[in-house]
């Protein structure tokens, strides 16, 4: 009966039938989006259950952990390793500032990994406490959809629990994909890369996305030899082309060997390590080969098709603007929907879901001007449109302001690495459409710029802001000279 009511679109109206459900909301997956949605829903008075796989740093069909990708296998452990790796460059830079360092500086990977694991264990505990403090009931086990209002949780010991829920939210995230080439089993993915026993002396990183360039930077900063193999002319497809070139130059400047327009054809085990053979016939020797070749939504074992939930051809759950699937009682947020795969976006989607369903305040996540960062060394951060996107969308001209400068620290350290900043401005409205920066502290700097862009700030408003001296960030408010003016229409798309 309950099922009928929901399909009829009576959702949200208080009903006698509500009492027949075990939960108002049952969430499958306790990562960023799932935890946020369940906490907020519980705060709005809903009775909430959530299930998550047992904790382990490396995920699989049967292993996960409260906190999800961000906390256990993504943002947090990655940033910890980036911090660790950044000291490599800092030590070089320190010398000209008068520091005398012993010839032998050791880096102990095992120690860093242990501390990283301690930290994610701590965070896993914090997340569990967040849930219990919010009154959300946590079940450990694998959840699957048993019907429009039915979830089945298979516990560790194999016993199955079954609960009914008025709403079901799927927030199971995604997982790294592997290339289908001979010897692929010799390679690892980012999960494993965050938990290696030993620091690889030689690493081959396959892929041109943010995960690839981050790991390349991490291992290079720790002193490894790194080969970065990617299909396109430049890494970071989808980012502003000019900034992609800057990142490529910086990666090279830090000593990473770039192999653009290159695919791996096979991997072979040899006496001296893994041999990675490229489609150009090159043979790269490595201790570790990392596949950073995309991620796929975790939608396979949820029984979605049988229950009638539609997926797209990548396996992502199809949802409407309110994160609702084609089944009115089933919703989905986060990477499993493959919209914009970022932690803060999953949080936003989770918040909007809770507002829509349990606060009586229908809310759509807003994907405009979402800032994000690539924690390469040095990092890249962007908000709004790239120059290419702006040209595609523009009716009139686009003004481009760029600034390329030697950061003050480099004037003494002698490091030959320029910081590059860029503003993309609509010539007619003076609105700043996009901002990007590649250089130290870029992600920290971009957050405030993002607030300005989110609210439609104009270039004149940037210019009227006084600089904070001496910082790198002040360059964003002192870009007086136009670099170029580009006509908005008819520009052919690049395919670098």
């Amino acid at each position: 009966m309950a099922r009928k009511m929901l399909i009829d679109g009576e959702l949200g109206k208080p009903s006698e039938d509500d009492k027949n459900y075990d939960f108002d909301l049952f969430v499958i997956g306790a990562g960023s989006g799932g935890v946020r949605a369940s906490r907020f829903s519980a705060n709005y008075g809903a009775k909430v259950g959530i299930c998550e796989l047992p904790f382990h740093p490396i995920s699989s069909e049967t292993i996960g952990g409260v906190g999800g990708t961000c906390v256990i296998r993504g943002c947090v452990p990655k940033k910890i390793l980036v911090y660790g790796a950044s000291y490599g460059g800092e030590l070089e830079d320190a010398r000209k500032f008068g520091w005398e360092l012993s010839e032998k500086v050791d880096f102990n990977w095992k120690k860093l990994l242990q501390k990283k694991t301690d930290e994610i264990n701590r965070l896993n505990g914090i997340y569990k406490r967040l849930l219990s403090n919010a009154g959300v009931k946590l079940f450990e086990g694998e959840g699957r959809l048993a019907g429009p209002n039915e979830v089945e949780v298979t516990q560790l010991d194999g016993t199955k629990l079954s609960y009914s829920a008025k709403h079901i939210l799927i927030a199971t995230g995604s997982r790294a994909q592997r290339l289908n080439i001979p010897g692929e089993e010799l390679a690892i993915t980012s999960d494993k890369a965050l938990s290696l026993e030993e620091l690889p002396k030689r690493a081959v990183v396959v892929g041109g996305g943010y995960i690839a360039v981050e790991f390349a930077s991490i291992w290079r900063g720790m002193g490894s030899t790194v080969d970065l193999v990617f299909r396109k002319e430049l890494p970071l497809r989808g980012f502003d082309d000019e900034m992609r070139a800057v990142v490529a130059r910086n990666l090279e400047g830090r000593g990473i060997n770039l192999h653009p327009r290159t695919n791996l054809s096979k991997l072979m085990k040899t006496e001296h390590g893994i041999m990675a053979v490229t489609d150009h016939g090159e043979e790269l020797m490595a201790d570790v080969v990392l596949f950073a070749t995309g991620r796929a939504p975790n939608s396979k074992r949820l029984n979605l098709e049988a229950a009638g939930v539609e997926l797209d051809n990548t396996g992502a759950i199809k949802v409407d603007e309110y994160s609702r699937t084609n089944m009115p009682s089933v919703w989905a947020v986060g990477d499993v929907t493959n919209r914009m795969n970022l932690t803060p976006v999953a949080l936003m989607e989770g918040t909007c879901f809770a507002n829509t369903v349990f606060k009586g305040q229908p809310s759509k996540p807003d994907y405009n001007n979402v800032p994000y960062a690539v924690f390469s060394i040095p990092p890249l951060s962007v908000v709004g449109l790239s120059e290419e996107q702006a040209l595609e969308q523009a009716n009139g001209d686009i003004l481009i302001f760029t600034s390329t400068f030697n950061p003050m620290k480099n004037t003494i350290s002698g490091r030959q690495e320029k910081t590059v900043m860029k503003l993309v401005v609509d010539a007619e409205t003076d609105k700043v459409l996009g901002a990007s920066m590649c250089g130290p502290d870029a992600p920290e700097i971009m957050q405030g710029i993002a607030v300005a862009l989110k609210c439609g700030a104009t270039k004149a408003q940037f210019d009227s802001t006084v600089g904070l001296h001496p910082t790198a960030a002040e360059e964003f408010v002192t870009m007086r000279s136009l670099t170029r003016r580009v006509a908005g229409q008819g520009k052919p798309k690049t395919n670098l």
Partner: protein
Amino acid sequence: MKTMASSLTSPKLSSLSSPTLQTLLCQKPPLSHLLCSSFVSLPKTLFSLSCHARFPSQYQRCCTFTVRSQSENGTDAARRYDFDLFTIGAGSGGVRASRFAANFGASVAICELPFSTISSDTTGGVGGTCVLRGCVPKKLLVYSSKYAHEFEESNGFGWKYDSEPKHDWSTLMANKNAELQRLTGIYKNILKNSDVKLIEGRGKIVDPHTVDVDGKLYSARHIIISVGGRPFIPDIPGREYAIDSDAALDLPSKPEKIAIVGGGYIALEFAGIFNGLASEVHVFIRQKKVLRGFDEEVRDFVSEQMAIRGIEFHVEETPQAIIKSADGSLSLKTNKGTVEGFSHIMFATGRTPNTKNLGLESVGVKTAKNGAIEVDEYSQTSVPSIWAVGDVTDRMNLTPVALMEGMALAKTLFQNNPTKPDYRAVPSAVFSQPPIGQVGLTEEQAVQQYGNVDIFTANFKPLKATLSGLPDRAFMKLIVCAKTNKVLGLHMCGEDSPEIVQGFAVAVKAGLTKADFDATVGVHPTAAEEFVTMRTTTRKIRKSKPAEGKTDSGVKAAAGV
């Protein structure tokens, strides 16, 4: 210079090195300005002055008569001058005003004292305080000093050193001074490329349209005074043993144990510098707290963090005398007692405008009690043809503000576009360790001006500190108008604060609301994202304005998450 050999890249420290043309610190003008310059010759006098000799001085004297009666900004339209603009002082404000005036078509000359790292009545240098004795060298020393903390942090990230990293002061000084030489050269080139005539020497105003530089007279339609300020040391016995910030930036050797007198930003920045470079640092402040004028919570937070890093604060102590003992060490006598054994005693007790011996009194330019030149909103002094920008006017003593004033003045004078500098929501930073960034009002100012405000704060251990195990924390604060939801003030103390605050300054300046902040998605994982994820009000202050005579309606419970 042994450390240099260990680096793979060759140092780019000389003013002759072209690969670093793009390096600009205080100002980063279009690249083309620099690329077309040679950077090779930096003669003491860039231009021949002979052409000016043909203007007889009596001509100028006879004309000054009528000047006061002229309407258009005090100039005599009919009269011919050597220059449209003569600027005294080639620091941030003076260079900016001169360059832009020249770009707008004016003929411009600027005079500046010969270069020295220590300023005096006879030494200065193109670039001014910011480049030679302020922002730039200070920040270079902060960078150097901060490595000590980074080495410590790095231990927590698995890095280990066979022996403790040691610091060589003379390497730092040599590299710092090479950089300053390079920058002063760049500044000279900026002037040259803008067609501004640089005259080395001490400028003195003779009459409303005449400047005397070491005996040579130059007439000008307008005169800008931009001579800046200088450290001030109170007159106590033994003051000759004290150093000021000029000297502290260029010491021959690192202090073993230093007393820093003062609680302002300069005192805190140097305390951080010397503490990082392993000096024993004592800070003496007259008041209970450091950084008067800053947000109270920030004041408490920064001194707590600095104390944890090993700086000893002596509060409510007023220095009375410096005594030099037989072994050469210095003692500082205060109202509370005497602390002995200092190798250096530094006074960071304020700065005073450089208005002495400028001829101001004789020509009738009014100055305030502290010597600052009094100006109106357009930077015009009491003499209509004489203008002043930057620290010499003691308005808001920051480089970017001097730049703003210089730019506004150039527009007013030579672009027929009267422009007032806008002092609202000017961000500023203290490069203490940890540093501070702020924009807008303090909580105290906000309560006074708006009565009802909501305060959002976050005090947290950054991700880096959880790994390093060091007791570093970060503090953030948003001050929001309860009525309009506008963000009135934003403050942060913690790593990267100055870089973080710049972008938010654009938002605060644009008058954005807390709702706008909340609508912005975070950049994860950063410290800065905390500013857009502050959902819970820390406290609500409800105080009607005194004029309305209402009493506090009480603090409401914080909203739930």
